């Protein structure tokens, strides 16, 4: 398989090995940047590169990654979403509220319930986008304020400082330690969610439909995709991932606050875009997104380890994001080539 791929590439020489290394969405470039950063750290502050450092990076990136998954789906399909944080906080908070009010407790099912609530909230976006063909950014802007307003007005606006004991125990369960840094067990469901989404995108017809709709909606229709149905699936699934992410956030922070998360959507969008998802759609991958989140998290933690004043952090992150989107924009400027016409004069 690989052998004949190489043979074919050599034969046509359209895709040199370098391009293959770069990856379809510049994932290779991103990995290179991450390695470079680590190298810089190694030179500047070798003592900082410990297993504990890795643990910190994982812990701080976990919620962002969970939030990024649903968003990735939407961005690949050519849409934009700012409602996912509201969906996440609604799902997480409502679940805990319900558990507290009814006095029930659990470890696994709260995650499923939150995901189900997220899915239901995602249906709002699905209706607006698939039926009313509303511009996705505008639609999600509307649903964000509606969902968050509904949460605060009708579900609750109080800070729940303690979680039900069993649920709380998830937040204190360490699966393994990286040096001094404990890694929470929720890394497992988040990793599973990543794998699941990667499988959906790469191995299912629905996933192919997501790329098809993002690549060219009209063409997708012409080959027989039911575009509205694909979009409905996308927004339901994105809601599901957002709901799940909300519970991950609740468990890791060990409290439930209805005021969390909303406001950080732009950071998540930035991580996904740096990860190679193209804002005009059709591109993006789970491993790219993982790398994007990793990069942002790495930068954040490196600043801490290097003892740089926290006043610099937002600025540096902003710079990283700016450079990231700029690189993506430049490398995607290709493809605007004209077809070759001129025929060489045959001797």
């Amino acid at each position, binding site marked *: 398989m690989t052998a004949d791929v190489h043979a*074919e590439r050599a034969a*046509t020489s359209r*895709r040199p090995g370098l391009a293959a290394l770069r990856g379809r969405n510049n994932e290779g470039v991103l990995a290179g940047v991450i390695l470079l950063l680590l190298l810089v750290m190694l030179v500047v502050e070798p003592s900082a590169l410990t297993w504990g450092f890795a643990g910190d990076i994982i812990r701080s990136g976990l919620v962002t990654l969970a939030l990024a998954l649903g968003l990735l789906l939407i961005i690949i399909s050519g849409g934009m979403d700012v409602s996912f944080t509201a969906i996440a906080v609604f799902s997480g908070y409502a679940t805990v509220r319900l558990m507290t009010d009814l006095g029930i407790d659990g470890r696994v099912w709260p995650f499923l319930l939150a995901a189900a609530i997220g899915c239901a909230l995602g249906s709002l976006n699905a209706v607006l986008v698939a039926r009313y063909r509303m511009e996705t950014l505008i639609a999600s802007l509307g649903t964000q304020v509606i969902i968050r307003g509904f949460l605060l007005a009708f579900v609750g606006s109080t800070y729940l400082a303690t979680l039900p004991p069993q649920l709380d125990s998830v937040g204190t369960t360490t699966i393994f330690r990286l040096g001094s840094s404990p890694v929470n067990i929720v890394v497992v469901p988040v990793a599973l969610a990543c794998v699941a989404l990667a499988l959906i995108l790469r191995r299912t*017809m629905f996933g192919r439909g997501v790329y098809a709709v993002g690549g060219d909606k009209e*063409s997708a229709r012409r080959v*027989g995709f039911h575009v509205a149905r694909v979009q409905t699936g996308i927004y339901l699934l994105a809601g599901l991932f957002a709901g799940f992410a909300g519970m991950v956030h609740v468990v890791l922070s060990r409290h439930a606050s209805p005021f969390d998360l909303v406001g950080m959507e732009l950071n998540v969008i930035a991580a996904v875009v740096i990860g190679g998802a193209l804002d005009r759609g059709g591109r993006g991958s789970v491993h790219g997104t993982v790398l994007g989140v990793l990069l942002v998290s790495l930068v954040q933690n490196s600043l801490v380890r290097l003892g740089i004043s926290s006043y610099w952090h937002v600025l540096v992150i902003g710079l990283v994001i700016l450079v990231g989107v700029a690189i993506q924009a430049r490398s995607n400027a290709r493809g605007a080539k004209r077809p070759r016409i*001129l025929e060489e004069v045959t001797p």
Partner: protein
Amino acid sequence: MSERPFALRASGVTKSYGGVRALAGVDVHVRAGEVLCLAGANGSGKSTLIKIISGVENPDHGTIELGGTSAQRLTVKEAVDRGVQVIFQDMSLFPNLTVAENIAMSARVSSNARWISERKERALARSVVERLGLRLDLDAEVQDLPVADRQLVAICRALALDVKVLFMDEPTTALTWHEVETLFRVVAQLKEQGVAIVFVSHKTDEVLDISDRITVLRNGEVVADGPTAEFDHASLVEALLGYSATEDRVLSQALAAAAPALEVEGLAATDLFADVSFSLVQGEVVGLTGLLGSGRSEVAEAIFGKVPTTGGRVRVAGREVSIEGIDDALRAGVAYVPSDRLTQGVFLDQSIATNLVSATIGTVTRRGGVLDESAMAAQVDDAVRDLAIKIGEPTDPARSLSGGNQQKVVLGKWLATDPGVLILNGPTVGVDAGSKAAIMEILRRKASAGMAILLISDDVPELVSICHRVLFIRRGRMSGELAGDEITESNVRERLVT
């Protein structure tokens, strides 16, 4: 052959958009193993018919019978399930996916598969590519492919399925001769396998060459239908255009002392064209023609500063100019009516008035950047009157106009720049006969007044009707010239295809 069963029979198909009737009770049929040519000029309803039969659009009336079952309307999926495949004119590929993924796409969608195996996708794609004897890099992304290869990918995608009726909408436009041969070989192969092929084209040579039967559409109606043997070049052209194609050759009066208006010397652009040299004098109408993908549009866009050049010189009105951008061209007095009216020419949702001033905003602005609205109004009124544009109010959106009047608006916005050289790229494509004649008359009038006009077109009667000289371009190089009485339809056509 007539014993073969009908693969497709569409009867009484009617379709209107808004108030405009695109198809009026069209009957079309094709038998298994038959190549039907569906011929028709732009706007004759060909594309609409294809969309209806492939389920992309629903008809208002009529039935579609495929392989024995008949239906009022089809979804894309149903059409595909019944063996209909279309190679659309725009190819409808996914630029973000690889060749293999594109080729396998229709087959996977149609099989109702839920899962994807990259291995199987590749195997499927490879088998189709090999069956057709093509060379395609299965892992390349379609956006990186040249147009001809994209066309081949589109063909492969259609053939990856068990196809019974294959529509090919202008499939040869972007292909080289060699590739057209390959395509025709594939068509013959499919025909032997009993596939019904509907070949859409308005290139008469091609139509006569490849088909068994011809159905001609004009203004949404079938105007001719019969075995190919019953047609010859002239009768086919007549059926296509609806009138004897020979338009009167009326030339504008050449100016007595015409100075050179545009001189192009050794113009070149990497991969696009090379050694392009020609010149126009004031008041001269010169045709520049070649097949699609010959480089004719690129040469025009290079002179207009839209395509970067890599060598050569351009002189306008005797002065050498360096045209690196459109503003340079405008300053030198070159105007360009682009080929794709809808995306490049007209602002559909903006008013007719703003459309008409869009190329001359600088000249209708007073000192300090404030718009001079009476100057704008005057310019708009002048254009409307001068070009006899049929409009409601100048504030109506350009969308409300007919194609012909939209084109007049685009023409008007460029005439307002008062250019010494006017380049037009396919100015009458998709324009009704009346507007076409009117546009030609405008051009003659402007030429008499001293404007040099470079008309890029492959509408042979049009070229013959107006041009003092016709230049030919082929694969990026100038390939000949006709002048004066040499310009006849048969001469131009012959030069065009050889």
